[in-house]
């Protein structure tokens, strides 16, 4: 039982990372119907920005304000990065077919990965510790301070996002665009601005995930975004793509099942489980757990 609880905690902390990345996928898919392949790489860039920022702050003691500063910095940098990607690569082809958009997304992803190998170096870097760390033992389950931070920060961000989408005018406009882009435009919503905002918010969340993973698994490399991105995408599909609470649920489920498979079966299946789940979802419930069936219209 203790082992199970321990695995559950580990799974939840990994799952919150997936959930944060999945949110970006699902939001962009919601407004543009595009699988933003470059999203996983934005997460990687977030981790690197965090790495360089914390190197700048080194020499000082690890402290909470520093950690917050690093997190904020990485989120801001990636929000701008997301805006640039949208403006330079996706906006020119937005009117073109979905296949064109998809190939562009793959191109952007490849470009970021390969450029990152040149800029940051292909060898992995080690994330310095940001905050003082401690372990807590609750009912035989070891909780590291990193795990607590990851789960707490993720949930804080998700609640903020929920508030943003449900209560603010921009959030309302975002939901309108995702419901029907053309109708939203006719209602006087500046769809270009809303789509750009969606990219900025999604990228900032991915950057937060990047910094959080840097604190938890301190090794980062330019290709780390591929696998995390894919699994987060599977999480978004599992929860119902385009559905915000679904992305969180999917992320937590994927993270937990991955940790459980490693714990109880074998670590060689670690990366296969997400795709196994994906195939099952596509066969049994293609709209995802919380997704609604949408009829495609002419």
């Amino acid at each position, binding site marked *: 039982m203790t082992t199970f609880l321990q695995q559950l905690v580990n799974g939840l902390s990994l799952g919150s990372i997936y959930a944060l990345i999945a949110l970006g996928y699902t939001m962009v898919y919601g407004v543009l119907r595009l699988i933003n392949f470059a999203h996983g790489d934005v997460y990687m860039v977030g981790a690197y920005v965090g790495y360089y920022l914390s190197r700048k702050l080194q020499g000082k003691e690890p402290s909470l304000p520093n950690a917050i500063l690093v997190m904020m910095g990485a989120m801001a940098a990636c929000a701008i990065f997301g805006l640039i990607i949208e403006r330079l*690569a996706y906006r020119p082809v937005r009117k073109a077919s979905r296949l064109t958009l998809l190939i*562009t997304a793959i*191109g*952007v992803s490849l470009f970021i990965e390969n450029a990152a190998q040149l800029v940051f170096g292909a060898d992995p870097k080690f994330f310095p510790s940001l905050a003082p760390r401690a372990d807590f033992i609750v009912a035989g389950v070891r909780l590291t301070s990193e795990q607590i931070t990851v789960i707490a920060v993720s949930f804080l961000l998700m609640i903020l996002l929920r508030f943003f989408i449900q209560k603010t005018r921009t959030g309302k406009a975002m939901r309108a665009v995702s419901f029907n882009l053309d109708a939203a435009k006719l209602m006087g919503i500046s769809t270009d601005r809303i789509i750009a905002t969606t990219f900025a918010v999604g990228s900032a969340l991915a950057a937060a995930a990047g910094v959080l993973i840097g604190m938890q698994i301190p090794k980062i490399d330019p290709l780390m975004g591929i696998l995390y991105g894919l699994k987060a995408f599977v999480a978004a599909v599992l929860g119902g793509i385009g559905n915000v609470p679904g992305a969180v649920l999917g992320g937590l489920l994927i993270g937990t099942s991955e940790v459980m498979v490693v714990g109880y079966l074998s670590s060689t299946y670690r990366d296969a489980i997400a795709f196994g789940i994906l195939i099952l979802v596509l066969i049994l419930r293609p709209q995802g757990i919380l997704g609604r069936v949408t009829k495609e219209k002419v």
Partner: protein
Amino acid sequence: MKSGLRTGLVAAGTVALLLVLNSLFTGSLVSGVAMPPYILQVICLAGINIILAVSLNLINGFTGQFSIGHAGFMAIGAYASAYVTVAWGDRFRGATSFLPEFARDGALLLFSLAVGALLAAIAGFFVGVPSLRLRGDYLAIVTLGFGEIIRVFILNIDAVGGARGYSGIPKLANFFWIYLFAAITVVVVSRTVKSSFGRTLIAIREDEIAAEAMGVDTTRSKVISFVLSSALAGIGGGLFGHYLMYLHTNSFTFIKSIEIIIMIVIGGLGSITGSVLGAMLFIALTEGLREFSQYRMVLFSLLLIIIMIVRPQGILGHLEFRQFFGRRRRLDAPTPPAIT
């Protein structure tokens, strides 16, 4: 009957020409005249790339579905056919001892390629059925995931070398076999596309809902096209293994799939001659930029984005080579419709 005779003559002529070229390149026709081995290898790898690009174009260009796991099917074909020749080769040679030496090698190669193609086709069926039922971009993600899984799976099979790589594969493939199969692939794909079945594929690409309304069983058509494409990729993989005599899962990563996509995107999605051109251009660029290999993928990915923004239909678009140069001069060729 008459057209049957003509087809037969063209086929026999092609085989004869390839045989002559093969012996010329290897230096056995005219002594002292031979292609430098490095150039010959580049030409042969270009031929394998043609097989892969043309077969991927069937699903990506003509059917309008997007697969990014072609290297996975190539890997299945490569490992399965290599395993056949390595493990069963001696027994096969024994059973066919009545044949002369070169025919025995050829028969063994054909047999192993058939096994590879079959297994790749079966894998294509199991990947295609769940993902092609749905509209949208799921095929992209499923094939991507599948490509990686199959690679990790092969990496863990000790009988085919695992992480050490699979060595000791006899060199059965050469210029002749590679270009013979490249020609066969081009013929199979262009005949498929021109058939009534091929028109259902193009209908799906242009408008899936309209195609369905016209009575096309879209899922069935998509799955058949995907299975055929996977089988051809399996053949390409089998030739790859029997040409290089060594296989390693690193040759079949996601990057390989992307490279094949770059070839068909450069050449034009939905153009067979375009894919051939794209495959040759790609290998020429790769070899030409060998000194700058670290910038290679950066350049290719930028090229991909720029092509999508400036000319999303690729160099030839939907047109074949002859149409592209022929029609344009006489009357303004209609702009090829966007791929949807």
